[in-house]
C-alpha cells in the first residue's frame, strides 16, 4: 500500500534580500501511512511548519518531491490538492456564519446544494457544534472556534488533514480536553492527520508516530514509546523529556552489551551498538530511571545537593563522588518511602538497560 504522504529529498531555502539564504528544510525524506496520526515535533525554526506549508501548497520546494498517494503534488497550487488545513489562529471567515464557513470548501468544489447541506450538518455534528450554525465566528469562544475550524477543514473529506499547532491558542484545561477530542476525531473520520507542534506532551499523547525535527533535518521517526525510551541522539533525548547526559569510556564489551565508565566508581551497562573498548561515548539516562538508596558499599555514591518536591515526584540533584552530577526523579506514589535531604550521602541505582548510547 502506498503511503498517504511521502516527502522525497525535499529542500526549501528562503532567500531574503540582504541576508544569507536560510535552509528551512535540508533533504528531508518521510513517509506517512494512511489513517496515521503523524506528528512533526520540534522547536520553532526547525522546519516543521515549512514542511506542512509545502504539503498544503502555500510554499513550493526548491528540490525534491512531495507525493500524495503516489502522485507528485509538489508544484500544484493549494486549491488543486485534496488536503485541508486547520490553522493556528483558525482563520475563520468573519463575514460568514459558522455554517457558511463549513460549507465554503464544498461550495468551491461546486458540490450539489443538498450534498453541501448534509456534509455541513455531519461535520458540525462531529465536533458537537450543530446548534451554532447560524452564529458568527466572533460570537464563539476560542474552543468553539477551534471546533468550527476543524469542521470546516474536514467537511470536503480531504485525503490528508494538516493541523498547524491548532491547540496553542487555547488555555491548558481546554488544550488537554481537545487532545483527546482530536484523537477521537481522527479515529472516527479515518483521515490521515499531520499535526505540527512544539509541545512534546501533545505529541506523545496523540500520535501514532512522531518525527522529531531540528535545523531542517528529521532527527528521528518512531512511535512515542520508541522516541522517549530510545532517543537516537542528544537532541532528541534533550528535547523529549529530561535526560542526564553522561560522557564516559567503554571499559568492556560483551555480546549485545557494553560497560561504560562515567565516573571512577560509576559504571553503567548499555547495549553495545557497535562500540569498541576504549571508545569515548555519550549516554542519555532519564532521571526517573535512577533511584536513590543508602550509601552502601558497591553502589556509586554521592551527596544530595538539591531536593525539589513537586507533589507526585521529588527531583534530586546528586553529586557523584568524582565530580559528575546527575538528576534523579523519584515518584512519590508509595507511602512510607524514604526521602532524602540536602547534604545526605546516598547511593544511586540505575535501572538495567535504561541508559542509551547516543550517536554523534
Amino acid at each position, binding site marked *: 500500500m502506498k503511503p498517504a504522504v511521502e516527502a522525497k529529498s525535499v529542500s526549501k531555502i528562503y532567500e531574503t*534580500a540582504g541576508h544569507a539564504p536560510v535552509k528551512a528544510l535540508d533533504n528531508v525524506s518521510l513517509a506517512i501511512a494512511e489513517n496515521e496520526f503523524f506528528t512533526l515535533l520540534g522547536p520553532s525554526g526547525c522546519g516543521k511548519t515549512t514542511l506542512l506549508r509545502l504539503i*498544503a*501548497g*502555500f510554499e513550493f520546494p526548491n528540490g525534491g518531491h512531495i507525493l500524495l498517494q503516489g502522485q507528485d503534488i509538489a508544484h500544484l*497550487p*493549494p*486549491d488543486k490538492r485534496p*488536503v*485541508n*488545513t486547520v*490553522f493556528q*489562529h483558525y*482563520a*475563520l*471567515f*468573519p*463575514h460568514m456564519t459558522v455554517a457558511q464557513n463549513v460549507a*465554503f*470548501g464544498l461550495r*468551491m*468544489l461546486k458540490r450539489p446544494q443538498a450534498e453541501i447541506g448534509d456534509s455541513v450538518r455531519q461535520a458540525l455534528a462531529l465536533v458537537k457544534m450543530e446548534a451554532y450554525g447560524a452564529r458568527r465566528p466572533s460570537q464563539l469562544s476560542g474552543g468553539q472556534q477551534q471546533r468550527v475550524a476543524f469542521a*470546516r*477543514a474536514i467537511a*470536503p473529506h480531504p485525503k490528508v488533514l494538516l493541523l498547524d499547532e491548532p491547540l496553542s491558542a487555547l488555555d491548558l484545561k481546554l488544550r488537554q480536553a481537545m487532545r483527546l477530542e482530536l484523537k477521537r476525531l481522527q479515529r472516527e473520520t479515518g483521515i490521515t492527520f499531520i499535526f505540527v507542534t512544539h509541545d512534546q506532551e501533545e505529541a506523545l499523547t496523540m500520535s501514532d508516530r512522531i518525527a522529531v525535527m531540528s535545523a531542517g533535518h528529521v532527527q528521528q521517526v518512531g512511535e512515542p514509546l520508541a522516541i522517549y525510551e530510545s532517543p537516537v541522539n542528544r537532541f532528541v533525548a534533550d528535547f523529549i523529556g529530561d535526560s542526564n547526559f553522561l560522557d564516559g569510556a567503554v571499559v568492556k564489551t560483551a555480546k549485545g552489551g557494553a560497560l561504560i565508565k562515567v565516573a571512577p566508581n560509576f559504571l553503567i551497562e548499555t547495549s553495545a551498538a557497535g562500540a569498541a573498548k576504549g571508545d569515548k561515548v555519550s549516554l542519555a539516562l532519564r532521571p526517573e530511571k535512577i533511584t536513590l538508596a543508602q550509601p552502601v558499599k558497591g553502589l556509586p555514591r554521592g551527596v544530595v545537593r538539591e531536593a525539589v518536591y513537586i507533589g507526585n515526584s521529588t527531583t534530586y540533584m546528586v553529586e557523584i563522588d568524582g565530580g559528575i552530577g546527575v538528576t534523579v526523579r523519584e515518584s512519590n506514589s508509595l507511602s512510607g518511602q524514604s526521602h532524602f535531604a540536602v547534604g545526605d550521602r546516598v547511593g544511586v541505582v540505575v535501572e538495567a538497560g535504561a541508559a542509551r548510547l547516543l550517536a554523534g
Partner: protein
Amino acid sequence: MRSHVGQYPGLRIWAALFFVFLYAPMVVLISYSFNTNKLAMIWGGFSVRWYEKLFTTGGIADAAFNSLVVAVIATTVAVVIAIAAALVLVRQRPFGGAGISTALISMPLIVPEIVTAVATLMFFVIAKAAIGFDFGIGNIVLAHIVFCIPFAFMPIRARLSDMDGTMEQAARDLYATPWQAFRYVTLPILMPGVIAGAMLSFVISLDDFIITQMISGPGTTTLPVYIYSMIRNGITPEVNAASTILIAASTVLVTIYWYVSRPNAK
C-alpha cells in the same frame, strides 16, 4: 492644579466662538437660499423658488450632471486601482520599490493643489499639441481619477493591513482559485475600507474646483466651477441654493464614510 485643558476658564466661550465663526456663514447661506426676497439682506419668508429657478435655467442642471458623471467614473476607477495597489503593497512579499511606491501614491495628498492643477493643465496642453489628445469631459475624468487614487488608497490599505493574511490562504486551501479567494473572502472583508475610500474619493471629486477650473472648457463645467462663474455676477439666491445642494451632498457622503470607517465596523 488644573489637570485637564477643559478646566481652564473661558474655554467654553472660545469654543463657542470657534463654532460660530466656522458654521455661521454656512447657516446664513443656507437660510438665504430659502429666502423669498431677491435681496439677500432682507428676509421675505420661506420658499423654494430659487431651487426651482435653478433647475429650470438649464446651466446648473448640466453642471450638476457633469459633476455626478465625473465623480462616479473617477471614484470607480480610482477605487479599482487603489485596491490593486493595496494588494500588491500589503500582500506580496516585500519588494525593493514597496516603500517608495507607497510614498508616491500618497504624494498628491501633500503636493499643493495649485501645483497639481498647473501640472495637469500643462500635461493636457502638451498632449493635445503633440498627439491631439483631447477627450473634453474625459480630460476632467482622467484628472479626477488621478487625484482620487490616494484618497481611495489610504482606507483600503489600512483595512488590508489589519486583515489576517491567513484568511486568503484558508480560502485557497478550501479549493478557491485566486480570483474566488479575492471575490468571496478578501473583498467582503475589505468592504468597509472600500466604501470609505469610495465616499472620500466621491466627495473630493465632487468638490474639486482648482484643478477642474484649469482644464474645463465649454460643455465640461462642473458644479463648483459653475457656482464660481455665477458669483462673478454677484451673490444671487441661486448661488446660495446651488451651494446648499453641494453642502448637503458632501455631508451625506462624509457621514457614510465616518459611519463605515468607525473602529470595529463589521
